[in-house]
C-alpha cells in the first residue's frame, strides 16, 4: 500500500498523518511497559525520574531495588511460592488437559458441546466470580482435609491454591492442544497400530512428538495463568502462600516500594522469553503439519 507517485497533497497528508496516528497508538501500547524499566534502576525510593536520572548522572542509578528483591525475605517467599505453585498447577492442567483434548478430538464424542462448555468455563467466568465461589467452597474443603485427612495446615493451603490455579489453566491447554490436533493425521496412529504398537507406545512415539508444540505452548499459557494470577490466590490462599503478584498487589495498594518496578522489569524479560518461545513453537507446528508458516 505504498503511496503512488500521482498522489495529491491531501492524500499525502492523509497517508503520513495516518502513520503518525498509528505510531502514537503503538507508543501508547508500549510506553508504559518501557517506562518501568529505567525507573527500576532509580537510586532514590521514588516512582519518578529524579533530576540526576534525567541528566544521565550515574549517581542517579543503582541496582539497590534488585538487591532488595533478591534479599528481602518477603519477596523471596513470594518468589519461592510462585515457583512452587505455578509448575505443579501446570503439570496437573497439562496432563489432564492433553488426555481430554485427545478424547475430544475423536470423531464420535457424545455431549461434545456440553463437555467443551464445562471445560472452557474457567476462562469465561470472570476471575472475581471464580474467586468468590472458590472462597466459599475451598475453605470447607480445606477444613475437611485438615480434620478428616489430618493434613498439615500449610500443605492444605498449597493444595488449595494449586488446585484452583490448575483448573484456571485448563481451558488454555484444551484450546491449544485441540487446535494442534485438528491437523493431526489419524492414519498415522492406525499405521502405528498396524505395525504392532500398543496404544501407549503409539501415543508416546507417534502422536506426542507431533502435537508437542501445542502441548508446550498450552503449558506456557497455563504456567503464565498461574504465575500471573492474583485474585483467586488472594481469596483462597493465606499469607504463607502469597505469590509474586500477591506481593506486588499488596505493595501497589498500600505504600509502594520501587522494588515492585524491579520485579516488573524482571517479569517483562520473562514474558519476552515466553512470547518468543510460543511464536517459534507455532511456526514449527505449522511447518510440521505442512502449512506454510505465517
Amino acid at each position, binding site marked *: *500500500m505504498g503511496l503512488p507517485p500521482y498522489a495529491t497533497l491531501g492524500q499525502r497528508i492523509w497517508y503520513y498523518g495516518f502513520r503518525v496516528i498509528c505510531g502514537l497508538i503503538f507508543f501508547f501500547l508500549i510506553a508504559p511497559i518501557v517506562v518501568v524499566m529505567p525507573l527500576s534502576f532509580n537510586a532514590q525510593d521514588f516512582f519518578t525520574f529524579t533530576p540526576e536520572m534525567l541528566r544521565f548522572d550515574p549517581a542517579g542509578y543503582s541496582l539497590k531495588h534488585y538487591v532488595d528483591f533478591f534479599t528481602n525475605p518477603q519477596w523471596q517467599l513470594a518468589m519461592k511460592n510462585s515457583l512452587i505453585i505455578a509448575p505443579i498447577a501446570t503439570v496437573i492442567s497439562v496432563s489432564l488437559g492433553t488426555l481430554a483434548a485427545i*478424547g475430544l478430538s475423536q470423531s464420535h464424542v457424545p455431549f461434545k458441546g456440553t463437555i467443551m462448555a464445562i471445560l472452557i468455563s474457567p476462562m469465561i467466568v470472570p476471575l472475581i466470580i471464580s474467586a468468590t465461589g472458590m472462597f466459599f467452597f475451598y475453605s470447607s474443603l480445606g477444613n475437611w482435609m485438615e480434620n478428616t485427612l489430618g493434613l498439615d495446615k500449610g500443605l492444605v493451603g498449597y493444595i488449595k491454591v494449586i488446585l484452583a490455579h490448575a483448573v484456571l489453566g485448563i481451558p488454555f491447554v484444551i484450546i491449544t492442544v485441540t487446535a494442534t490436533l485438528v491437523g493431526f493425521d489419524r492414519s498415522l496412529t492406525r499405521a502405528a497400530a498396524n505395525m504392532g504398537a500398543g496404544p501407549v507406545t503409539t501415543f508416546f512415539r507417534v502422536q506426542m512428538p507431533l502435537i508437542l508444540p501445542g502441548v508446550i505452548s498450552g503449558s506456557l499459557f497455563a504456567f503464565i495463568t498461574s504465575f500471573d494470577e492474583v485474585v483467586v490466590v488472594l481469596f483462597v490462599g493465606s499469607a504463607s502462600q502469597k505469590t509474586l503478584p500477591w506481593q506486588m498487589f499488596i505493595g501497589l495498594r498500600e505504600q509502594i516500594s520501587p522494588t515492585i518496578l524491579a520485579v516488573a522489569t524482571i517479569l517483562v524479560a520473562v514474558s519476552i522469553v515466553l512470547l518468543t518461545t510460543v511464536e517459534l513453537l507455532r511456526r514449527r507446528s505449522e511447518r510440521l503439519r505442512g502449512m506454510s508458516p505465517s
Partner: protein
Amino acid sequence: MAETMLAADGTPLKRSLSRALRRQKLRALGLIAPLLFFVLITFIVPIASMLFRSVENEIVSNTLPYTVEALAEWDADQSDIPSEATFQAMFFDMFLAAEAKRHTRLGTRLNYETTGLSSLFRQSGRQLGDVADISYEPLTGLDKAWDDGETWYTLMNARDATDTALMAEQRKRIAKLTDKEASGTVNFAPDAEVAALLPLAAREYTAWAIYVATQDGRDPAARDPWEAMAPALLIDLKTADISGYSGPIADMLRAAQDTDLPVADFTAAFTEMDEDWGTKVPWETIQTNSSKYTSGYFLNAVDARKTAEGVAWQPDNKQILIKLFGRTIWMSVLIMFSCIALGYPIAWLLANLPRRKANLLLILVLLPFWTSLLVRTSAWKVMLQQQGVINDVLVWIGLVADDNRLIIINNQFGTIISMTHILLPFMILPMYSVMQTIQPTYLRAAKSLGATNWTAFWRVYFPQSIPGIGAGSILVFILSIGYYITPEIVGGTKGVFISNRIAYNISSSLNWGLAAALGSILLAAVLVLYWAYDKIVGIDNVKLG
C-alpha cells in the same frame, strides 16, 4: 433379496460396526472423564455453592428454631407485639446461642435487613444471665443441691426408658446452631418419664448436655448446667402434675413446686433490656427472614429490602449498588469504544502492510498482551500519579503549572485509560484476523467505479470488517465488566467496578450472601454475553497468541 452382510468374525456387519462405534465413544469419554471430574469438583461445584449461598438463609431458623416456630402464628397487622410464649422461646433460643457465641452472627445477618439489630442482639446477649437469675437465685436458695450439676444429672439421665426422639432433635439443634457435627458420644440420655413431665427443662438440659459433650469435649455428668435451667424447671413445675412421680429427687421437685418460686415475665424482661424488643420491628424482621431460602440478598444487591409489607426500595441517596452496576456497564462501554477507536487503525495497518513488517509490528501488540497484568497496572500507577511521568512531562513542556498538576489517578479517568491499554490487544487481534481476509481488490474495484476514498472505505471495507469489531467488542466488554485488580489500584473510590464491591463484601464487611448475590448477577450477565459471542463468532474460534 441380498443377505445380511457379515463382518470377518461372522457377526452381522451392522452390529459389528455399532459395537466398534460404542467402543470408540467409551474410549473418548474415558480420556475426557478425569479432566471433566476434576473441573466439576474444583470449579463447577464452587460456582454452584456460590449460587446456593446467594439464596441460602438457614441462619435465622438454625439459631432461633423455637422462636421462629412460635412466630409462625403471629400476624403483625392484626396483633400487637408477640405473645409471652414467643418471648419465652426467644429467651431459651438466645441463651443457648449466646453460650455458643452465635447470637452476634445472627444479629449481623439481620442487620442487613434492619439497621440496629446487630447491637440489639449483642447487648441483649449479655443481659440474659440476669433474667435467668430471677429464678436461679431463689431456687438455689431453697435448696443448695440445685446448685450442683449432679442433682440435675440424676434427675434427667435415663433410668428405664430413653427419649430417643428428644435426643435426636437436640443433636440436630446443636449441629445447626454451631455449624459443626454434634454426633459424638454423649454421656447422657434424657429419661422418658422426666421428659414427659418436665418437657422444657428436659429439652434445655439435653441441649446443654450435647453442647458440652460435643463442642467442648467435656462430660456433662461432672459439669454444672447453665442458669437457664432454673427458669425452665420452674415454668414446667407451674403446670406439671408430679404427684405420681417417684424417681430421684422427687422431694426436691415437690418442695420447689409448693414454694411457688418466681419466674421472670419474659416480655417485661426483654423490654427492659432494650425497649426495641417492645416494638414490632425486630419480630417482623425475624419473621420475614425466617424461611430457609431468601430473595433478600438479591434484593439487597439491587438496593431493595424485604419488609413485612413487601419489597421496599432504598431511598435515592442510599442506592449505591444500582449506581455501581450502572457505572460498571457505562465505563465498560467507554473502554470498549476507546479500544475500537484505537484498535481499528492498528488492525487496518497490520492487515495492509507486507507480511514481514506486519509481523514485526505485531510484536508491539503481543508484548503487552504477554506482560503480567500486575506489571502493566504498576506501570500505569507510575504514569498517572500526581508526581508521575505524565504530569512530569506536561509540566516540563509547560502545558500544566507545577502547582496545578492533573489528577488522573484514583478516578474514572485512571481506570478507563489503564484498562483501555490492558484490553487493547484483545480488540486488535480479532479485528486483525478478520481484516486479513478482506480482499484489497474490492477497494480497488470500488475506486475504479468512481467511489471516493471515503465512500470506498465506508461502503465497501467497513461493512466487511464489522465481524471483527463485534468479536473484539464483546470480548473486551466481557473482560472489562468483571475486572478487579486494575480498578482497585488506579480507580480510587469513584472508578471502581461491581467486582470491587464483591471483594469488599467478602473480605471487609463479611456479608457473604450479598457478595454471592452480586456475583450471581454478574455471572448471569457474562453468560448472556458469551452466548451472544458464541452465536456471532463461535467459542471454537477463540484463538490464542
